């Protein structure tokens, strides 16, 4: 019995899937071959992301160590490379606590729900030519939709833990996520308009000039927004150790904590992969049809390094500063970007339907100028608005003042 995959199937564009499907389909019924091929592809992708997560935990700690003039993990393996294994074994052997009065079902569901969006996003990212698991025609929208599910998982963690610090952390996390989603969506709209496609492969192919240059504001807004959504350091109020201990995952221990941590690091990887795809021309480079994966990995490493660099450089912001940054600054510049981009497309495109490389260069110059102007103006405005915090009155003095008032 042999099966043929219909050409209009979403997975038809994936060579690996087709190969496994044909192989399994020669012996098994078609629907079983379909499931097996799907599982094989998923197995490879999921384990690839998890292995990347393990490497990232090591690289991040090592780099943070160097940034802080320390050595970083160096005990097990060459350069401490086996540190993630040691961490995993430690976390696996730890006790798996469930707090008293917790909503057990919801509490135990959370690690799975945290991991899910991270892995689902990978499905549409093309690592090299024709390697996206499913090249959806609405890839960008799919990424936004799937990653919005994290909000619910965070809230479930905070609610079910029966711990007020967890609830505080969840409320903060949800507030950050909800407010940063708006500028992120608006910034991606600009990218989609220039590319003329919502499929990630389409966006990669449209980048004759990397959108790093064509959409600099969108890149900035997207990078800031995703690092806020991933709870990375300048924006990690959701787990401010000095205030609310560890935020929404305070009650999680052992393997559940490991999964939540892995989902955060994996989220960083997938977000960086999305940035590489949307702004750094993805797998494009010299010899792209053979070395696409290499270019992709190099760019991914660069973006991850930048994320770690930012984490090592900036202190944690206050909650109100984070909110102001999103609503007053990111939202306004992403709206400016949207307006400028749509006007430019309207002027440049003229009669023919597609933007040429020359058009992209013109747009790049104009948008870089607009980005510089935005940063200058915003810098001026924010400097004018810095208020001096009044020093608190000494306790004795205020006490006497109160007594006198009485």
């Amino acid at each position, binding site marked *: 019995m042999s099966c043929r995959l219909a050409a*209009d199937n979403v997975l038809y564009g994936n060579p690996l899937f087709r190969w496994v499907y044909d192989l399994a389909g020669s012996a098994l019924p078609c629907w079983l071959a379909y499931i097996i091929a799907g599982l094989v592809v998923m197995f490879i992708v999921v384990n690839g992301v998890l292995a990347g997560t393990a490497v990232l935990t090591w690289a991040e700690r090592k780099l943070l160590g160097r940034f802080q003039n320390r050595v970083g993990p160096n005990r097990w393996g060459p350069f401490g490379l086996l540190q993630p294994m040691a961490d995993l074994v430690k976390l696996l052997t730890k006790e798996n606590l469930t707090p008293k009065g917790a909503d057990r079902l919801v509490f135990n569901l959370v690690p799975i729900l945290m991991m899910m969006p991270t892995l689902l996003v990978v499905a549409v990212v093309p690592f090299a030519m024709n390697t996206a698991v499913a090249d959806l025609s609405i890839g960008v*929208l799919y990424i936004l*939709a799937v990653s919005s599910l994290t909000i619910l998982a965070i809230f479930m963690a905070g609610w079910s833990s029966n711990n007020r610090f967890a609830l505080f952390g969840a409320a903060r996390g949800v507030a950050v996520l909800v407010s940063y989603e708006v500028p992120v969506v608006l910034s991606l709209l600009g990218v989609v308009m220039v590319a003329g496609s919502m499929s990630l492969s389409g966006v990669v192919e449209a980048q004759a000039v990397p959108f790093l240059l064509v959409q600099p504001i969108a890149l900035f807004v997207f990078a800031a927004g995703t690092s806020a959504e991933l709870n990375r350091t300048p924006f990690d109020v959701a787990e401010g150790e000095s205030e609310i201990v560890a935020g929404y995952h305070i009650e999680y221990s052992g393997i559940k904590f490991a999964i939540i941590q892995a989902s955060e690091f994996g989220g960083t990887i997938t977000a960086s992969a999305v940035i590489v795809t949307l702004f750094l021309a993805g797998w494009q480079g010299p010899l792209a049809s053979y070395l696409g994966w290499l270019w992709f990995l190099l760019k991914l490493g660069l973006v991850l390094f930048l994320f770690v660099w930012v984490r090592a450089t900036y202190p944690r912001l206050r909650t109100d500063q984070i909110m102001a940054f999103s609503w007053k600054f990111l939202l306004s510049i992403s709206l400016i970007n949207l307006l400028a981009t749509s006007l430019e497309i309207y002027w440049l495109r003229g009669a023919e339907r597609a933007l040429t490389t020359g058009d992209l260069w013109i747009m790049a110059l104009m948008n870089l100028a607009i980005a510089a102007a935005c940063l200058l103006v915003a810098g001026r405005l924010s400097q004018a608005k810095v208020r001096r915090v009044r020093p608190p009155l000494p306790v004795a003095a205020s006490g006497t003042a109160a007594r006198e008032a009485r």
Partner: protein
Amino acid sequence: MVLQDIIFWLLAAIMLAAALGVVLVRDLFRAALLLVTVFLAVAGFFVLLSAQFLAVVQVLVYAGAVAILLVFAVMLTKDVARGNQPNRLRLPAAGLAGLALAVFIAVAVTTGWTPLPPSVQEQAALVQTQASGGTTPEGLEQAGISGEVQRSQAQRATLADLLLGEYVVPFEAVSVLLLAAAVGSLALLRGRPQG
């Protein structure tokens, strides 16, 4: 196809069970989570109908935004864990719910279900034949087009044409309504000016 039937019945079972759970579970937070399950199952149905765009929008709007609103409402409700106490509004509420159900069923039964205007149907049919019947899969692959992509692009295009063409007035009216709601909520939150 066997697989699609299995998935359909599985989704239907999950959706009905979750919908029953929403009504029967006493813990309001869990009820909200079950409602999210129902939303996701609906998205699954859209995928089965090859309406990927609608499925993603369903997840984005319902599971992403409406669910958060619900969850916040639950969090701000007093005595959530004890669930809804029976009160005097029970009977009127049941009557209202029954009425709404009757209206929905009546509309579903009496509607003719020819949603697309003829011109759009022709366009969609044209794309369908181009994608599946007209050329061989190999030819399409060489041209770099897989049928699904083309079809769902056409889907999106027709949706956009309908929204910004034929139904532009209701579409804009909804936008204005949403803006008014946002401004109104801000005005309410701000309270009276101090002093």
